[in-house]
């Protein structure tokens, strides 16, 4: 009886153990990780559309971007998805595809393209997709001066389904100057009925050492036009010079010491060690004189 009892208990333990283990291993291998695909489109001034998809994977410590993932881009049309192209994500998890703005993909009632980016996933990662609606558009940036006041002018045109271009009559265009880590906004222009708008260009923007500036104008996350970007250069920046004084060469904190410190040190050391040398010379002379003496004594 005892043996049978312990045998049953043992079998029970082993069974639960293996079930537990297999459950664990199942959890490890069979549940793919959740991925997130962020999809955005931008119209650029060279008459093309930039489709950009970023894939990231969620895990315990946050999320990491997924590299080498194949992303397929589609146009969502009545009869199904038409494949536009595909691209692989780079080491930062970003896949980019450029297509011409003049294209034959279907547009909806508002003349917007309906685009989709899809990642098919594999055993380790879930599939994910994102959608974006965009009507191709173009911005043009120019500059002019009137009564010695400087202006920046922006013109927006939209590309219709039939290939014609008409002005953008509503929308806010942000004009800025790209700097080291971000873009400095200098104006927010609302386009009028002719698709144009202008704003005063500030006098005190700092450019490069010659005073040249790159100015960018962009529409961001518009319901119809998505993202639109354009840029132009001008010479209206202040020349960038080191506002801080020129780097001094000899200070307390520079690699080379100020001259007076070096000279003082040399004088002091020479003075002191000179005396030491004198004393040592006297000792040497004492030693010498004794050596001379010895023969005399003996005689």
């Amino acid at each position, binding site marked *: 009886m005892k043996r049978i009892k312990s045998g049953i208990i043992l079998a029970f333990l082993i069974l639960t153990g293996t079930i537990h283990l297999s459950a664990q291993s199942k959890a490890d291998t069979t549940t793919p*990780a959740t991925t997130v695909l962020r999809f955005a489109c931008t119209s650029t001034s060279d008459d093309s559309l930039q489709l950009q998809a970023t894939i990231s*994977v969620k895990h315990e410590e946050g999320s*990491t*971007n*997924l*590299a*080498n*993932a*194949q992303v397929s881009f589609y146009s969502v049309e009545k009869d199904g998805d038409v494949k536009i192209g595909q*691209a*692989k*994500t*780079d*080491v*930062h*998890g*970003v896949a980019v595809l450029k297509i011409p703005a003049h294209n034959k993909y279907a547009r909806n009632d508002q003349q917007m393209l309906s685009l989709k980016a899809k990642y098919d996933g*594999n*055993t*380790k*990662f879930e599939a994910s997709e994102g959608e974006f609606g965009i009507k191709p558009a173009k911005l043009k940036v120019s500059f002019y001066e009137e009564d010695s006041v400087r202006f920046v002018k922006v013109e927006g045109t939209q590309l219709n389904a039939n290939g014609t271009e008409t002005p953008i009559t509503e929308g806010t265009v942000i004009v*800025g100057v790209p*700097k*080291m*880590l*971000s*873009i*400095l*906004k200098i104006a927010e222009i609302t386009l009028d009925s002719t698709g144009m708008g202008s704003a005063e260009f500030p006098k*005190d923007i*700092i450019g490069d050492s010659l005073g040249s500036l790159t100015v960018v104008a962009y529409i961001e996350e518009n319901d119809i036009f998505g993202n639109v970007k354009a840029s132009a250069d001008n010479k209206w920046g202040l020349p*960038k*010079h*080191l*506002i*801080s004084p020129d*780097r001094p060469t000899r*200070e*307390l*904190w*520079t*690699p080379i010491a100020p001259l007076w410190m070096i000279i003082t040190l040399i004088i002091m050391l020479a003075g002191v060690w000179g005396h030491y040398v004198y004393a040592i010379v006297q000792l040497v002379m004492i030693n010498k004189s004794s050596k001379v003496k010895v023969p005399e004594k003996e005689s």
Partner: protein
Amino acid sequence: MENKKKEDNNSRRNFLKLGILAGAGTVAAGAMIATGKNASGESGEKIKVLTTSGEVMEVDKNFLTLAPKNREESHEGIPGRKFVMVIDLAKCKNARKCVEECQKGHNLPKGEEFMKVYLMQDSEKSAPYWFPKPCYHCDNPQCVSVCPVGATYKRSDGIVLIDNERCIGCKFCMTGCPYSTRVFAWKPDKEYDIDRPYSPEKSVPGVEGTVSKCDFCPDLAREGKLPYCAAACPMGVIYFGDIDEDVVTNGTETFKFSELIRDRSGYRYLENLGTRPNVYYLPPVDRQFPVERGLDGLDEETLKRYDNTPLVQKLKNKEGKQ
């Protein structure tokens, strides 16, 4: 099963061959296909990248962006830049994300902080405020003046760095800094035990028996990124930029530095000491929340730090009375 394995292996090899070049826009000149361990252009420093076969793979940083500078190269500042930081005391609520991200980014042990957040109160009647304090990278750095071996140095881009392979650990610079910025590696922590070539620009790995401090993350600036603290702050307290370009940003907002200082009355801490720091503070005006909120959600040890401050004493008295 085996086919799948082969496929995985192929995909990994393919990744190495092609995946890296797919990020062509950011590849440094001279990067080559890494087919083995000693491909030319390898820096030895790896970053984590998740491949589709599921591994978190480490790819040599050289293939991705500009490599972290070694000791000789890190003596040269980033050309044409002079870094400045602006800290908005009106928004700081002691979330301590800056402290944590900085510790993570620099592999610091828990007790060592490059960015410290103090609870300051200038006088008895003035209001307390939270005071994040990185290294100020002063233009007249006492710490650099007193270093006997030149282990700490100021670069042309304003950043004061420490070369932990020359530092003898005399700690004179720690007494020279009036802002108590520097920290010392008192024992061999396990966080120092990482296999990575040493770069003063990243201050990693730490070296036992030497001094270290906030370095304004020049390795991130070279990549066009904000330092860990500025990027992590949920309130957008820390602005970082180039003072010669006159622009600072906290990741979401970008301002002209001169306008920010003029409109918000920016100042430098302990200006009268003559150190000419490069971190400006915006006074804690119009705060949207009470300063006590900074004491919420802290773990016990961090909370104990502020026990001797007048604010905490006052709160304890109130509690006692109730």
